[in-house]
């Protein structure tokens, strides 16, 4: 059995589980309506305005930094697998790569991107 087919089976299993549980809940659970029931929960205080608005930029900075380092992980994994064949030369190249990345991290650190404001 190929892995891709098995992956599909697992995926369908996951979807099936959610759908089945929702259907069971729909059949068994009671329903009652009330004009206040559908309000967003804010500890009883009527909510003001929408929540879909501009948000703190600090999270965004970390997301951008993450992007850089996550792509780096993707590039490093193939090296990790073939490390023994590539030997010292490969290690040297990767060392250079990591130093460049570390410089990037040091730059972000110095600029204050890692500081929570």
């Amino acid at each position, binding site marked *: *059995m190929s*892995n891709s087919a*098995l*992956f599909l*089976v*697992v*995926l369908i*299993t*996951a*979807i*099936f*589980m*959610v759908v089945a*549980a*929702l259907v*069971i*809940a729909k059949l*068994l*659970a*009671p*329903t*009652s309506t009330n004009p206040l*029931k*559908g*309000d*967003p*929960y*804010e*500890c009883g205080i009527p*909510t003001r305005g929408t*929540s*879909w608005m501009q*948000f*703190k930029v*600090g*999270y965004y900075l*970390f*997301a951008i930094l*993450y992007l850089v*380092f*996550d792509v780096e*992980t993707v590039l*490093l*994994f193939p090296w*990790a*697998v*073939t*490390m*023994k064949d590539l*030997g*010292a030369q490969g*290690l040297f190249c*990767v060392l250079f790569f*990591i130093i460049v990345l*570390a410089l990037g*991290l040091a730059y972000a*650190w110095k600029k204050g991107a*890692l*500081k*929570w404001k």
Partner: protein
Amino acid sequence: MFDFAIVTSWIDQFLRSFLSAGWTLFVEFVLIGLVILALYAVLALLLIYVERKVCAFFQCRIGPNRVGPWGVLQSVADMVKILLKELINIKRVDPFLFKAAMFLVIIASICTFGALPFARGLQTIDFNIGVFYLLAVSSLGVVGILLAGWSSNNKYTMIGAMRSGAQLISYELSAGLSLMAIVVLSGSMQLSEIVNQQAEMWFIFKGHIPAFIAFVIYLIAGHAETNRGPFDLPEAESELTAGYHTEYSGIQFGFFYLAEYLNMFIVAAIATTMFLGGWMPLHIPGWEGFNQVMDFIPSVIWFFGKAFLCVFLALWVRWSFPRLRIDQLLNLEWKVLMPISLINILLMALLVL
């Protein structure tokens, strides 16, 4: 040692004896799905019970003790109860994304779960890029959590989702890098191959200090990725009610709860597979008698024993430390764990060469 491939091939031959090839495949797929579902549900119930009981002992209480002997049926009763709860329709949500979020969270969790090698010959998905697959699929959960928080149109969920997003993506880096240290050591990304290479000696011993550092970093990062313990900012109940799943009710909330507990187990299981030898018994080179005694213990017991040891560590940490602030949390990752894990990979490469 007992090999589960005997059971699976026996079922395969039994089905083939009276069904055509296509139908055999279909029945086997259905069986695989059912087994995964059953294991997932049973583990979830067990983990919830274990968590409540361990938490109670840490706090000098008795914990659940009314339903069944020692309260073992408590989580079963809770699951039935949560299925019977009303699903409230919130007015101003984005209905499609609100529903899609819980699908994504469960899909991320079950797809990772399906790739774990539970015992000898008992593994569903075995990609040759298994480690990559684990990292890729488990990071889908972040999308689900962000969607859940955003689509609820509620300030608490929004703040919770944003915190969770920042936390999960940050800690994913050092989790990935610490697993990479093991990939450097083994030279393979296939999980079954990684487990097989640990037959003589587990990687945590084989890799000396770098492997141990990677193990500790993975436990910390994995713990943070499950949104638990001192890293439970996204659902800090004293300030955000329940964080990103505030607006979910009944079984919809149950999915997030289920995924959280299973993710705890999955992190423990990945740590077991990569560092503690998966289902391989403890072998010490040179001690022949000892090794043979260890071989008698079935592989399932080895795997779950080691995984539950890691789960216990996670619970211990959760109930022992106070919650971190968000700047402390991000500092820990970006200024401590990240540099250490980058250097650790180079150390591991030097060790292997």
